[in-house]
């Protein structure tokens, strides 16, 4: 499979998407970012690099991933047709592998034998460890102590793949702190280390580069939808947003179309226990503009600029910021961002599992939930594509715990009712 990496009008020459993005990092890293940008531009134009990446996408990842008409979900929703872009089919279980393989190939090209990565849910860590094993690179993955506990299986997979998983206990012991730690490692070992960043966040050129590597998702949808629907653009595309890489991957190939040809692009943010509750990871709905991990974006931070720890049922969305290109899409009306709660995601996960036999990742379940709503709004003429960013294997233990808790709560409520009845009688 011959691959071309897209070129989009954003960011500008300074790595800005409107007022978002940029490079707010220690000076030590600036030359490394310049070097990365140059290496990426050269790789993008090099047939050898593109052929190798195309081959790995096909033979190692299993691309193209299917575009699947979810008929029973569509019937249930009672409106627009719902297609699922099956990134859950990818080897290692999520879209993350696209970006990791591409960055690891770039690392090899740049002569770096050591790669580092940060991970929350463990998906990006597993993908990085996999790419490192495939290409014979040393790999260190930073992961918060809290996430290590929640994602024991992925931790084991990384170790089995030969990666060193370093536990991070600073700050809140979650993804944002793992990212801080990875950046500190990079600052220290910048001359011989390649940082495989996991989403469309971080200093320029990361958001642009990760987008380009993930854009294969949207590019495939264009071709696949043309075959089944006779048009390359659906009416709406829905994708979950943590940092925002799977969403940008499916949005970007459509985002720069003229307004009349552009589908509605909708990102679902993790609203946790509700945006009002303060326990959420909805940076757009519940945050304000700030700087974290090298880039200006919507951010959960208090009125003195301290980062507010996010909360989501899904570790992969549990990030206090959102990629700068999404922030720009939001401000310019190119895309919409809607909050979806933990409970709604859990409901959607069960719905998709029962109706289609597909257990989605908790992250992706946020998108599924909104798609069902949107299908009703759009009506039977409409076509929706949902990015099913990953599969739910990693989440089943957590889901089991949550559902059992729910059931116990039901039983408890019934007990209370019974006691009340007895007392009243």
């Amino acid at each position, binding site marked *: 499979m011959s691959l071309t990496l897209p070129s989009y009008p954003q960011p500008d020459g300074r790595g800005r998407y409107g007022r978002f993005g940029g490079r*707010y990092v220690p*000076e030590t890293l*600036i*030359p490394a970012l310049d070097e990365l940008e140059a290496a990426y531009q050269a790789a993008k134009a090099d047939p050898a690099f593109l052929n190798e990446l195309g081959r790995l996408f096909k033979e190692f990842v299993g691309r193209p991933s299917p575009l699947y008409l979810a008929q029973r979900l569509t019937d249930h929703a009672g409106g627009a047709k719902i297609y699922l872009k099956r990134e859950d089919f990818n080897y290692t279980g999520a879209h993350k592998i696209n970006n990791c393989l591409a960055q690891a190939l770039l690392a090899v090209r740049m002569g770096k034998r050591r790669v580092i990565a940060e991970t929350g849910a463990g998906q990006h860590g597993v993908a990085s460890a996999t790419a490192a094993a495939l290409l014979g690179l040393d790999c260190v993955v930073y992961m918060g102590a809290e996430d290590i506990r929640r994602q024991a299986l992925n931790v084991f997979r990384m170790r089995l793949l030969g990666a060193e998983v370093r536990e991070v206990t600073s700050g809140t012991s979650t993804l*944002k702190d793992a990212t*801080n730690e990875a950046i500190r490692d990079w*600052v*220290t070992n910048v001359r011989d280390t390649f940082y495989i960043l996991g989403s469309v966040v971080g200093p320029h050129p990361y958001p642009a580069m990760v987008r380009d590597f993930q854009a294969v998702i949207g590019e495939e949808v264009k071709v696949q939808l043309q075959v089944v629907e006779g048009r390359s653009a659906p009416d709406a595309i829905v994708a979950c947003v943590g940092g925002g890489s799977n969403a940008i991957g499916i949005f970007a190939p459509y985002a720069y179309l003229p307004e009349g040809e552009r589908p509605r692009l909708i990102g679902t943010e993790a609203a946790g226990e509700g945006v009002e509750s303060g326990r959420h990871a909805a940076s757009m709905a519940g945050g304000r503009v700030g*700087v974290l991990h090298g880039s200006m974006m919507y951010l959960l931070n208090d009125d003195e*600029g301290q980062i507010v720890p996010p909360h989501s049922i899904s570790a992969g969305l549990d990030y206090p910021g959102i990629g700068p290109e999404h922030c720009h899409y939001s401000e310019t009306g190119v895309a919409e961002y809607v909050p979806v709660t933990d409970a709604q995601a859990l409901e959607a996960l069960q719905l998709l599992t029962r109706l289609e036999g597909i257990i989605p990742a908790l992250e992706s379940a946020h998108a599924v939930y909104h798609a069902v709503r949107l299908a009703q709004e759009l009506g039977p003429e409409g076509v929706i594509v949902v990015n099913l960013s990953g599969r739910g294997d990693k989440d089943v233990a957590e889901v089991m715990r949550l559902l059992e808790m729910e059931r116990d709560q039901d039983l408890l409520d019934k007990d209370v009712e019974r006691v009340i009845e007895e007392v009243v009688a």
Partner: protein
Amino acid sequence: MTATLTRGAERIHAAFDRAKEEGRAAFMPFMTAGYPSAEEFPAVVDTLLAHADLLEVGIPYSDPLGDGPTVQRASEQALAGGTSTRRTLALVKDLRERHDTPIVVMTYVNPIYAVGPREFMRLCKDAGVDGLILPDLPPDQDLEIADLAAEHGLAVTFLIAPTSTPGRVRLVADACTGFLYAVSVTGVTGAREGSALGEVPAMLALAREHARVPVAVGFGVKDAATAHQVARVADGVVVGSAFINAVREGQDVGTLAASIAEGCRR
């Protein structure tokens, strides 16, 4: 440039000049505001100020990605004790009433944006701050912050690193109005084993070609010996993590400060 020197820049340059006349590199201790607690911080800093030519005060921040574990833990402790941006500037204001030594505030950019750049500069001016050190703001990222600082009489300091290319050194040096901060190693803050000079000499030679302001070196200076290494080549010596470690371990901060100040003699 010299024609438009701000009040803060003049005071900072004067402090470097005084040290130089006395045959020393300027000694600049750093302490995280509100560490070990808001109550104990003033006494710790009084001890440092007895030996300092300039003082660096850090605004505690939740995600200090240019700092190593020592400063990060100090920040966490200070934040847990309720010290944040406004409280830091109130602490500086109190210090200013008792001391005339120039004070520069080290801050990541997010606290500046959260308070609002103009309001932040106004608060700094009110508190008697002389300058700002901005570890995650390469000067070409935001041209407004330096202008606003100047408007409020404050000097700004940006950093160069051993990885900086000649072009970057020139750009950063040009943007500094207080002093130029040269990071001695590729890495984050923290006391470390071995020489603090690291890759300094070559970088410093380059920096001196371009800078019209004094050049200070920091990261990894921890005692009189390492301070002396640096003092021989730089105009100023910054020491942070070693003092935080001393406070944490209950050592006599005054003795350490006196010995490092002595090490700054050439």
